[in-house]
């Protein structure tokens, strides 16, 4: 009896040592992959930031109105953000590769899922960037046109244009990464429909006078602004 127990313990010990002998190299490999991945990700972040600096990405972000939005959202400047995105994508890739080496069956499909997700994530980021640029351009163009055209409430009008585009962009980005797709689409459709209906009712019933003034300003032949009353040249 005692002998059997001793044999079992010995066998368990042998198995443990064999498992450890098999696992330790994998663990070391995993740690090496993670460490090397971290170094490569850091290097790539530095390169991306340098290239972004050379391409004057921050100036472009300022020009297209992305920089103030990043500041408002408490995010780093455009070049640092780009570097951070590259860093995390690359390091996360290495991290998952390292974990894959450990051979945990429950984590087997994680790496494949991650690499399948990356293109969609990048596309969503691109959609967001384009959305920010377009929203800001449209906001500024609307604001300037409204101010120079003497349209009432220029900030409200331009702000509405910006948020409409941003909401549309956000919905598109979330739809791209398939996060709560049904909820996002339904919420967007309801919100957009409600907004359009509210604007139509407000403009049609409550804002007849405003509509009249806006339309009059759109046709300068019918009513010239004070600026058009003098010969500037």
């Amino acid at each position: 009896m005692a002998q059997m127990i001793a044999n079992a313990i010995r066998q368990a010990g042998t198995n443990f040592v064999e498992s450890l002998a098999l696992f330790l190299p994998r663990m070391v490999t995993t740690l090496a992959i993670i460490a090397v991945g971290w170094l490569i990700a850091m290097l790539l972040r530095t390169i991306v930031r340098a290239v972004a600096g050379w391409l004057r990405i921050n100036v472009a972000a300022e020009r297209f109105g992305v920089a103030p939005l990043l500041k408002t959202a408490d995010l780093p400047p455009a070049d640092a953000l780009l570097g951070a995105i590259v860093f995390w994508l690359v390091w996360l890739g290495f991290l998952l590769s390292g974990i894959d080496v450990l051979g945990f069956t429950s984590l087997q499909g994680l790496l494949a899922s991650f690499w399948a997700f990356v293109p969609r994530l990048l596309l969503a980021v691109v959609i967001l960037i384009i959305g920010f640029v377009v929203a800001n351009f449209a906001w500024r163009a609307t604001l300037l046109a409204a101010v120079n055209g003497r349209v009432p409430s220029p900030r409200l009008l331009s702000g509405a244009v910006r948020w409409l585009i941003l909401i549309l962009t956000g919905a598109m980005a979330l739809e791209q990464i398939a996060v709560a797709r049904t909820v996002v689409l339904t919420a967007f459709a309801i919100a957009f429909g409600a907004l359009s209906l509210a604007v139509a009712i407000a403009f049609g019933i409550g804002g007849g006078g405003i509509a009249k003034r806006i339309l009059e300003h759109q046709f300068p032949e019918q009513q010239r602004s004070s600026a058009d009353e003098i010969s500037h040249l």
Partner: protein
Amino acid sequence: MAVGHVDVLVGVPTLNNASTVRPVVKAVHQAFSRYFPRDRTVLINSDGGSDDGTPGIVRNASIDDTGTVTVSHSLRTMHRISTPYHGVPGKGNALRQIMTAAELTQARAVAVLNADVTGITPEGVAALVRPVRDQHFDYVAPVYQRHPLEGPLVTQLVRPLMRAAYGWQVREPVAPEFGCSNRFVMHCLEQDVWDSELGRVGIDLWVTAEALAKGFKSCQAGLSPHPATPTRTPFGELFAQVVESAFACLERHAPYWQARNGSEPMLMASPPPSATIEPPAVDGTRLTEAFAKDVESLQSVLESIVSEETLAGLEALAERQPARLRYSDALWVSTVYEFLLAYRSGVMRRDHIVRALAPLYLGRTGSFLRQYATSPEAEVDEALENLCREFERSKADLIQRWNSSR
């Protein structure tokens, strides 16, 4: 029709000018008969595709249909050509065609007139041609006899800016009429401006700036009173076109104007005819009515364009009642120069930068018009001269910031 070589070529760009072009053509014919009877002359009408019969009016205007007794007749055939140009309708393409014709005919002197201004006289045409024909000037800028409160976009912005930058005291840098030599024509045709936005909408300003920057022998000539014809372009578009053209010229000619200090008066080849000019009946307060609201609305745009100090000045100004608004020369100069620097460094789309300046210009113009509405002409002239000097004084700072902005 073969025209051959000509001595004097007068170009009239048109686009739907049926109601105004006839007196211009008459003035040209009278000028040819009275002042250049022995010269080979030609009138070129470059039309941008008028659908109101403008080319027909030019072609059919009788040479003898002057309505006055001419004291002399031309001893040579007076050619008159009306031709459409191809491409985008605009002054640039029309002027290019006129200049090409001048080069082909080797015209000694060229004058370009504005088909919108019916007040042009034969003497005015001669005043633009003579300095080139007789005194070998390369470029003749017009000087209009008009009240100093007229043309505020010129007096408040373009004139002082161009004077401070280019170092020449040109009264009308953005005039659609001018005279020039064949040498200047050939130089202009060689430039790459014609297919650009500047060539399309800002060619009048570019011609003046190019003559100054490239050292062409230039002078000014007085023209008859300049009637304040209502512009066909809405204010917002007109302002954007003129200011963007001025900024674009300054960018093109930066190496020239950065080396210039102060300003020199430009020779007046012939003074404008004396006339009593009434001040314009403009209510300055109306222009400043929306200033406070505009500054508040545009704050987020302005803070990307102007310095904190200038923005604080604008905000302090916006807190005053429109009737008490005093937009000082110093603040206006800072505003214009900082907009120019923002245009150069491209902090946002350039047309957005220029359009953001329009409400501030209206505030400054309204403030100035109200301040000097009842002042004698000499006092207004002095105030405009002080503004020009303020622009000149601040130029050194502009150059320093210009060179460090990129």
